[in-house]
């Protein structure tokens, strides 16, 4: 068992290092942009020049931005380790932690089902396409079309066809503007109606990529020696596929881990197209407003969730791939 422990220790070390450097970069990059958040804050305050001048120096001091960079960096880590993400300048005076807390559920409601379902359904469809030539020639163009569509373009097409033209589904917000959130059936139906389009726009685009990957892997595995051997032994089609599938799924799991980060980008455009609340739009506004604290906070959450997801997948890998397990328990 010490093999697994060594594996975990090594992984943990890598993750901590990654976390530290990723967060440092997220802290640094906004500060390299020209301009500063307080200055932009002033732009939203159309008033007399005298008044703006007073406020500028006040806010520079209260946000600690008048201090040298290295002091700001140390203060940043001090605050983060105390769980304090600071106060947003864009949504002043709301604490960044509260902003994220309010927005995150919507991201999870869209992203988690979209990522997991597209992965599952994509792999399933890909496997079917891989073993069935007729279906393959029909499905592949669809997959390629889906995976090649940019998220925002696909979202706009969906909104145009299903929302505006056919008027089937609402295209804006997470629920109707006139309804109060509640556990009533009415609200749930309303929420789901608003949920479908943003979900679909992510789900379908992601689906294409997984399906293509799986289909290629299946075709490759079906040609492998062990399948040939099984075939020669007279094993059933079902058994063949079972073994091929198990081997083909491994790169897909790795792919899922790698893809998680880029999926955040998909959420961002989807949220803008559908005016769907969530971190995506807030993060973009934070960047446009150079809201250091909001950018740091959002990226901290993204970095943590990507790392956690990767860690889980690493663990899963040790479970689903016996070779990984053996490589660490070998010789004991």
């Amino acid at each position, binding site marked *: 068992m010490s093999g697994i422990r060594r594996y975990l220790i090594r992984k943990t070390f890598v993750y901590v290092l990654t976390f530290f450097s990723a967060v440092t970069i997220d802290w640094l990059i906004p500060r390299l942009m020209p301009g500063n958040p307080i200055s932009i804050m002033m732009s939203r305050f159309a008033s007399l*020049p005298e008044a703006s001048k007073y406020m*500028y120096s006040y806010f520079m001091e209260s946000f600690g931005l008048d201090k040298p960079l290295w002091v700001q960096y140390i203060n940043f880590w001090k605050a983060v380790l105390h769980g304090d993400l600071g106060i947003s300048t864009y949504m002043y005076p709301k604490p960044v932690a509260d902003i994220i807390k309010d927005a995150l559920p919507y991201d999870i409601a869209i992203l988690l089902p979209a990522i997991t379902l597209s992965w599952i359904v994509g792999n399933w469809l890909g496997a079917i396409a891989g073993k069935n030539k007729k279906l393959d020639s029909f499905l592949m163009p669809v997959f390629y079309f889906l995976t090649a569509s940019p998220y925002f373009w696909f979202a706009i097409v969906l909104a145009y066809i299903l929302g505006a033209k056919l008027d089937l589904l609402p295209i804006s917000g997470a629920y109707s*503007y006139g309804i109060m959130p*509640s556990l009533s059936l009415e609200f749930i139906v309303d929420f789901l109606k608003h949920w479908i389009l943003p979900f679909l726009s992510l789900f379908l685009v992601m689906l294409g990529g997984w399906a293509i990957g799986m289909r290629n892997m299946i075709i490759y595995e079906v040609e492998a020696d062990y399948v040939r051997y099984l075939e020669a032994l007279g094993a059933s089609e079902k058994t063949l596929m079972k073994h091929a599938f198990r081997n083909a799924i491994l790169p897909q799991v790795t792919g899922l881990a790698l893809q998680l980060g880029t999926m955040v980008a998909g959420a961002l455009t989807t949220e803008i197209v559908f005016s769907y609340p969530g971190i995506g739009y807030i993060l973009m506004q934070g960047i446009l407003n150079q809201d250091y604290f909001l950018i740091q906070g959002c990226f901290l959450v993204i970095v943590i969730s990507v790392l956690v997801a990767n860690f889980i997948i690493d663990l899963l890998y040790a479970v689903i791939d016996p070779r990984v397990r053996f490589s660490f328990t070998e010789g004991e």
Partner: protein
Amino acid sequence: MRRILGLLLAVLIVSSLGGFAGYAQAEELPRNETLYVGGGLWSPPTNFNPLNPSPVTGTVGLLYETLFTYDPLKDQLKPWLAEEGKWINDNTYEVKLREDLKWQDGKPLTAEDVKFTFEIARKHKGVFFSNIWSWLKEVKVVDDRTVDFVFSDPHYTEWNYWLYMIPIIPKHIWEKIDNPVDYANNENPVGSGMYKLYKTDQMRCIWVRNDNWWGIKYFGKPAPKYIVYVIVYSNNVALTMLVKGDLDWSNFFIPGVPDVKSKYKIVTWYDKPPYHLSANLALLFLNDNKTPFNNPDFRRAIAYAINPKEIAQRASQNQVLPADPSGLLPLPSHQKIKAEDLIKKYGWSYDPEKANEILDKLGYKDVNGDGFREYPDGKPMRFTIIVPYGWTDWMEMARIISDQLAAVGIRVDPKFPDFGKYWDDITKGTFDMAINNFGSFISITPWTFYNWILDPNVAPTGEPTYGGNWGRYKNPEVAELLTEIARTKTLEEAKPLYRKLQEIWLKEVPYIPLIYNGAWYEASPAHWTNWPSEKNPYAYPITWHNYWQLGGALVLLKIKPVTAGGGATTPAKTTESAKGSTTPSPTSKDKGLCGPAALVALSLVPIVLYRRRR
């Protein structure tokens, strides 16, 4: 294994969605009593602090109120919380409050509250009007309803502006708050206004009528029981909502409005172009510190080369008016001081021939024959014009200006940096040309406009400045005139000074007025009627922050529901009003497994099951 995996995922999803809190009570706002408004809210509503520069729109006007309001259509300062206000001697302004003013928690609003509001700005420099204390000496409470403002250096003209900009806050609540500047004030804020904060979430801000408002006996009762102020990120969505009747009152700039206006009976201020009243002035800023823009003749040549009519038509579908050389808005407060004779004498109009003539005379000639002029010493001349990326109408304006200047041989490249970079460049004065309008809003006195655009206290190039004098135009005479105007008592006294300012403006051409940006206003007659318009001009119909007290609040008092609300109560309405009596305490959160989460999980089950069977 796979089954475990599937179940694991399902559990993960359900548990993560579990945090998505549901609410105990079901409620839908009654459509015939709810007004849907949009155009002034661009991020989730978080800040209801009236002392702060940019609180959620409605914080001032709906929740907190000012002593006076200002009507830009008639150019009148109107008493609101105040009954009257007058100068009792040269440096004392006395405000008499109305009778029976009260806060939303029932406590009376007195002179003490007014004094407290000003005192808080003396102590905390972050309050947006704290600079008043450089010329205000003290605030004295005479009796419960009377306050005296004693000035060390009375800025009579400027004071009128602050009278309708400063919201009065309740002393009994704010004196307990340690740092009133970064206080978000988003939990049951208590103001004196006609609406109370009902609920906020990620997509909207909901206000509920204050049925015990002190103003009912003076102004009547506002018609909508609820105001839902929606966040919409895209103009197209706003237009869709408007034509469907889902949005009653829009203050968005919507490109398609002229095309669909008649089909959907959308109300705008004018039925014909420009459709909207003017709100502010967009100008072409030149960097007056850089060669060759430091030469007034060169600036004049550019002014001659630019055609504001074409800009209004191509960039804004004629939803705006082209500006005249003075840049004074077509609203009474600005028109009153406009000197037409000076414009005739020193002004300009679109005339590329004249521009060519001036440029030739200055020695800027096309030497190398590439179609563009060079500096007199033969070096190539090339400038950039900046507007923020994504501001599509301004981006189009920049392109048109670039074309118009190319026609007289000046090469200007339109550049669209992110807003942060744009703002950095203009505040630090490191640009060539830029379009901006931030401080040119309509106010009770043109002084605010001139003080912004010609702000004499600019920082040197490279350091940020926050007045509107981005190109750092310097003229000691202007500085003097601005201080003098701020101290004038009457308009008659100020008029000759304004004339001098306009003369300098027209002769020196510090910047070039382009268009009068609109007070975008589109209303749907589907659920509410009696909207203001040119034919029924009872209020300036804007709901942006700081515009409620310019007319937005009056609209609420005058509009009427389409379906008879008051007497003819439908069953739905009675249940609502029964509920209404217990509001507005936001319904308590009931943490638990929300329906959507369960349904998402359910949709997973078939897939898990299917794969298991294989």
